[in-house]
């Protein structure tokens, strides 16, 4: 499947793309929210894996923008910071429910999750 990986840290974005492509996916790395929305519109990915805390447009804003463009696109958020729980709670109040993973994520677990049926997410409390 076509997967867009968004993280402001190039090492993380690059290694994830490398891992996902090794599993037979067609992954692409971008380093900020604005680029992510632009590329998503162009490549119409099946799934997006995005960091939450990013300079400029954060992961949640990015996810909301892409949801409007691609309602069927699967969105997985991943974050290294508890502060993102506040942002997620706010998003939930607005009616958005996101799938969230805590950094560091086990690459095998991520691959397995992408292959599973969407909808089940790690509750924020688990972060």
């Amino acid at each position: 499947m076509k997967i867009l990986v968004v993280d402001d840290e190039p090492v993380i974005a690059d290694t994830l793309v490398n891992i996902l492509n090794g599993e037979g996916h067609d992954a692409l790395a971008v380093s900020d929210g604005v680029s992510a929305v632009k590329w998503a519109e162009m490549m119409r990915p099946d799934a997006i894996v995005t960091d939450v805390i990013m300079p400029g447009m954060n992961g949640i804003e990015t996810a909301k923008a892409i949801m409007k463009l691609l309602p069927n696109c699967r969105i997985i958020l991943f974050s290294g910071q508890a502060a993102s729980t506040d942002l997620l709670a706010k998003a939930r109040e607005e009616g958005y429910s996101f799938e969230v993973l805590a950094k560091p994520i086990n690459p095998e677990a991520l691959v397995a999750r992408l292959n599973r049926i969407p909808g089940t997410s790690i509750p924020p409390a688990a972060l």
Partner: protein
Amino acid sequence: MHLKQYAQGAGFSFFIPGSPIVLNQSKGSSGITHKTSITPTPKPDATANNPVPSGGGVSPEEREARLRREAELDSRKLQDLLQQAPAAIALLSGPEHRWVYVNQEYVRVTGRKSAADFIGKTLVESLPELEAQAYVDLLDEVYRTGETYAGREARVTLIRSANAQPENAYFDFIYQPLHNADGQIEGILVHAVEVTEKVMSRTAIQRNEERFRALANAIPQLVWMAKPDGAVFWYNQRWYAYTGATPQEMEGWGWQSVHDPEVLPAVLERWKTSIASGEPFEMTFPLRGADGVFRPFLTRGVPVRDEQGRVVRWFGTNTDVSIEIKARDELRRVHERLETALINSQKLAAIVESSDDAIVSKDLNGVVQSWNRSAERLFGYKAEEIIGRPITMIIPPELQSDEDMILAKIRAGEKIDHFETVRVAKSGERLDVSLSISPVRDDQGRIIGAAKIARDITQKKKIEQALRTTEKLAAAGRLAATVAHEINNPLEAVTNLVYLGKRDLPNSEKVAKYLELATRELDRVAHIARQTLGFYRDTSSPSTVRVTHTLDDLLLLYDKRFETRKIIVHKQYENEIEITALAGEIRQAFSNLISNAIDAMPGGGSLIIRVAKSRRWDRLVIEGVRITVMDTGSGIASQDKAQLFQPFFTTKEDVGTGLGLWVTHGIVERHGGTIQVKSRAGTEKHGTVFSIFLQFQAMPGRLQGSVTREDGGHSPISPGVPTQ
């Protein structure tokens, strides 16, 4: 001319005209015969003046003899009369005033023995003491002019007995010229009545009066006398001197003009009542002086009565009692002041006694003078246990020098406000107290001791400590969030790299690249861990802190946020300064200010950090360092400024806990420093400046000798904790 005669019985001084009679005195050796005419008192038998009936057959000789006999009889009768008259009567003859007759009374009043001392002698021969007096001249005058002379109360100096001193006698007298048949003056009739007693008694009265007036003029009181009807007829000189009025103005009821018109009706009423009843008058009322000033006078008027008890005059005095009244008023005021002071002191004592704060006083040697109930409760000592003993009993051993500082300030007249320190109760328990100490002065303003109010702030300190702990926990939470990002991201990268390394194991070139990247990421994690641990290292003992290094470390930590927010940092380090302080706390204090500055500039701006040697504003002797953190942010609204350093005050609803500045303030205070803020909100030149002053030995005293050197290169760094 008139001949006059003394009319017996009815006093003296009435004269009646009458027919001439011839008086022939032949007594004495001179043998001179005088004929004179007097008018005798009419007599029922008309002996002297009855014309003898002329009968027929009488010869002229017989007639003459009979006439002579009759005349002699008359003369003898007259002489008897004159002899017994109560007036001194004498006849002087000729211009040399030779005595031809003196009666008994005359002999008596002159103090001579008998008529023989006079008859045939001149006036001067018989009464030599008269020579130097005016009477001889007077007699000459009467003899020469024929004019009768009447003298009243004339003083005559007489020597009334041989060995006596000359004495003054007073006489009413008449010198009456005597004419002969031809109308020529032959002699002088002397008629005198002694009035010495009457004159003397009147003189005595006059002298008394003079003495009284002299006395009345000499005394400081105003003195007056009034007629029974109340009209004043005399004032002493003091009255005129005081009132400046003239006797004309004052006469009768004129005194009203120096009275106060408001009081006058009452004075008049009382005065008239006294006049009507004869009761003494007493009243104090104002009298206007010549200077226009009214002064109170105590006025007394007493009636003087005659033998029949009738009021003959009023005698009065006015005594200036302004001094007495002033003194009395002053006394009353003093009394009132004392009463008020007493009441106040009682009130004060009650307040002191019932105060929740410990209130104690001590003298300049630090000896306890008073000790209220709250002091007993707080420190555990009963008043009787500690009064008279040194206050140092409640000062912990390491703070004994406090007392010298306090007493020095008190002696200099300075107050000490809210001095937070530690005292020891009787039980040995250490108490956090806030002391306010003021000098106590005596009446003369001399400092004699100190009054001290001690408030137990142990509880407050505990609450503050709890709040600070809470803030530390909150900070820890925020730290965790920040640190998690910093740690989890490299961990994410390492995890991925390890996965790739395993996957591409045969390709050693690739694996080596992954491992290299992983090592770099692990270094990041290690660094973050060091920082984090360093922040929470318990720096319980002060160390040497390089202010600029601490700031540099913090700025490094916030570097990413500056970049993101487009904040440009300007460092203005004027000096490389080291202070002795609690490094972790100082870092926290700075961190909070920088973090606030960042939050104040969401749209970017400038952050200026300045470090310079300085002195404390309020106590210039204290040297230290001033750290200024300036931002070009939104500024603080003026209504928020007052609460800036209060706990739980925040303007940042999303991210603030409202404890940051409060914590910073507490840290600075604990280090004996000061913190100030200036801010300007609005559209132009807005921004905020926080300025911290720390003295070089911010943690002195007990910290000496245990200072540890902080490693400047790898100093622990506090995270960017969002705070207000």
